[in-house]
């Protein structure tokens, strides 16, 4: 069976692109929500890489790790959103640049 088989490197390229996009987002966005979203993107980039690698080696491990990553991401975001509510309550803003009470 030869479905479309895309060389691993291409997918890795895509995923790394995704990863970089996420990272860029982290750096340029100030709103915490968007920051969390960029985090998702980065995690998914990793997940994608795992799936691709798994496929390339013909192992199930890739997909398993993918699921793990989904749960992890979910946990992170859950806590993250919880904190976001608090941020909104206490800082009256979601702009992370205003959360710099501590420095030096």
């Amino acid at each position: 069976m030869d479905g479309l088989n895309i060389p691993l490197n291409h997918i890795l390229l895509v995923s790394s692109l995704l990863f970089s996009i996420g990272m860029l987002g982290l750096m340029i966005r100030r709103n915490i929500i968007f920051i969390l979203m960029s985090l998702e993107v980065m995690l998914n980039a990793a997940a994608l890489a795992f799936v691709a690698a798994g496929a390339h080696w013909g192992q199930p491990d890739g997909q398993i790790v993918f699921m793990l990553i989904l749960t992890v991401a979910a946990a992170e975001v859950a806590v993250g959103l919880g904190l976001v509510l608090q941020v909104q309550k206490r800082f009256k803003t979601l702009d992370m640049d205003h959360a710099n009470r501590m420095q030096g």
Partner: protein
Amino acid sequence: MNATMFSALAPILILSLTAIVLMIQASIKRDESVAWIITAVGFVLTLWGAIYARDYAQSVTILLQVDHWSLFFTSLIMIASLVTLVLSRDTFSPEGERKEEYYLLLVLSVLGAVVLIQSSHMVSLLLGMELMGVALYAMIAFPERGQLPLEGAIKYLVLSACASAMLLYGFALIYAATSELSYAGIGAKGAQAYGENPMLIMAGSAMVLAGIGFKLSVAPFHMWTPDVYEGAPTPVTGFLATVSKGAVFVALSRFYIDGALYQYNSLNTALVFLAIASMLVGNWLALRQENIKRLLAYSSIAHFGYLLVVLIALTYLDTGLVSQSITFYLAAYMVTTLAAFTVVSTVAGEDTAKQDISAFEGLFWHRPLEASALTVAMLSLAGIPLTAGFMAKFFVITVGIQSGLWGLLAALVIGSAVAIYYYLRVIFAMSKSTESTGESASHLEKLLALVLIAAILVLGSWPQPFIAYAGLL
């Protein structure tokens, strides 16, 4: 999966059980002190479990590697957690209600740490790290009032999530290169994979380093440290500084050793950069820091810089002396840091103003016990003989000299020389004479301080038994 494996997993199982019991207890009747007791019992049992499991040391599935080394660190972590528990008791008294969750979080975080320590596989590493981390976010943000904890938590969350992403991506690349997820496998196939596609595996392991380096707050991934240290409730800071960092470092060294990463020259070079950067940056940042928690944060950066020297030496030495050094250094560092945070939390508590070094003036004359504890801790961090910190440094330097890492040693000397200044500032402040403030700590905390002093001094003045023990691990 036979019975002995369950015995080997005793610590993890007991901890999980504790977590469940806590939840049930919370659902039945919310009572903070009961929860505290349950946690305490759980931790003590786990400690016992860690010792009990020694007879069943083995690798449980591919995921977990339960050996004496990991069990030793498990027990070390349990001790640290107990200290945290004791300190936490009246830290949140203003919060009063809904304190049980905190203990639950603590238990979960410790569970994560244990898993992390025993992990021999990327997946277990990931799970452990995330479990520990996610629980920590909540613990940091636990106080309901004030902005600092929240700020610290959110920063830590975002940054460490980013770090995990890096870590994961690095794993993905390594996996792609080697088709292996277990350390041993990577170690076995690494060299060959390197031959085929060096770019992948190098980039991968570099990203892993970055991800883990963040958790260890190695420069240049250190910037979160002071803010989180300052923002988090002091016991949590102590927990973060000891349990979290310790577990992560153990995981790193396992990954580095079993994964045979030390065989890659260029990776080593990268590590050298990180180490030197951390030693210098950490100490320079601490130089004129006024807030003692931030000061400790910076000093921890430097200390993990020193510790990296040992990892780097792996390239030149056999694992024996290296793992011994890691054991000793981490033990010494944990004890010392715990002592420091014990004093900080009993003296300064959550009040940022009181965390100022100037607030410690005259402590010698009003609260001699705490003052001496902090002094010993500072001297130990500075690496003055007769303290655990000195023997730790002794190990690092010996290893460094044995493998001729002169550049690193030079950085170490400079760093330590700078460090003396800010550690002494604290001591000097305490030795000033001011009028008493008339506060005093609970007996439990006093006892704790005493025990920790004793531990530091014993480790420093009569280390032979411990060294011998560490040699057997």
